[in-house]
C-alpha cells in the first residue's frame, strides 16, 4: 500500500479531528454570526439548529475517531483485525444517528443541502455496515490462512 497516501490520509483525519472540536465548541458563536450576517432563518430556529448541529458534530467526531483508529492499524500493517469490524459497525450506527437527526431538522428547516446530508449519511451507514461484513469475512480468512502450516 502507498504509505505516503496512508500518512496523508491520517494527517487529514487528525486535522479534521481537531477541527471538529473547534467547530463544535465555537458552534453557538458561529451560529449567532451566521444568523446575523447570512440567514435570518438560522436566528429564528437558533435552538433547533444548535442542538441538531451539535449532535451531528459529536457523532461526526466519533466517526473520525473510529477512522483514526482504523488508520493506525493500516499504518501498523495489521488492518485485518476484529477491532476494525467493530469500528465499521460503530460508524454505521453513528452515521444513521446523524441521518436521523438531520431528517428531523429537515422537517423544521427544509433545505436541499439538508436533504443531501440525510441521503449521504444514510448511504454511508449502509456502506459501513456492508463493509463490516466484508471485513469480518476477510479477518476469518486471514486467521485461517495464518493457522495453515
Amino acid at each position, binding site marked *: 500500500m502507498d504509505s505516503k497516501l496512508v500518512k496523508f490520509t491520517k494527517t487529514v483525519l487528525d486535522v479534521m479531528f481537531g477541527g471538529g472540536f473547534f467547530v463544535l465548541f465555537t458552534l453557538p458563536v458561529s451560529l449567532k454570526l451566521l444568523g446575523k450576517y447570512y440567514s435570518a432563518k438560522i436566528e429564528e430556529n437558533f435552538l433547533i439548529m444548535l442542538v441538531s448541529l451539535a449532535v451531528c458534530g459529536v457523532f461526526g467526531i466519533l466517526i473520525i475517531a473510529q477512522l483514526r483508529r482504523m488508520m493506525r492499524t493500516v499504518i501498523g500493517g495489521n488492518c485485518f483485525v476484529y477491532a476494525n469490524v467493530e469500528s465499521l459497525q460503530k460508524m454505521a450506527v453513528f452515521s444513521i444517528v446523524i441521518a436521523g437527526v438531520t431528517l428531523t431538522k429537515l422537517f423544521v428547516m427544509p433545505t436541499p443541502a439538508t436533504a443531501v446530508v440525510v441521503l449521504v449519511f444514510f448511504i454511508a451507514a449502509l456502506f459501513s455496515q456492508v463493509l463490516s461484513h466484508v471485513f469480518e469475512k476477510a479477518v476469518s480468512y486471514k486467521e*485461517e490462512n495464518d*493457522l*495453515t*502450516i
Partner: protein
Amino acid sequence: MGIKINLDVLMAQKKTGLVELAKRVEITPANLSILKNNKAKAIRFSTLEAICRELGCQPGDIIEYEED
C-alpha cells in the same frame, strides 16, 4: 478430538528438537509449535512432505483421526 497431530511423539522417537526440525523443514519454529500443539487449522502437502522426509515416516504416522 477429531484430527490429532502426533508430531511430539515422532520427534521424541527420532530425538529431534523443535528448532532443529523447523530448520530442516524450512518453516518457523512458531509455526511448527502451532502444528505440534494441535492448534493448526490446516497443513500444506509441502509441509507434510517435508516432515515425512525429515522424520522418515508416513503421513498417517503424523496425523490420526480420533472419535469425539
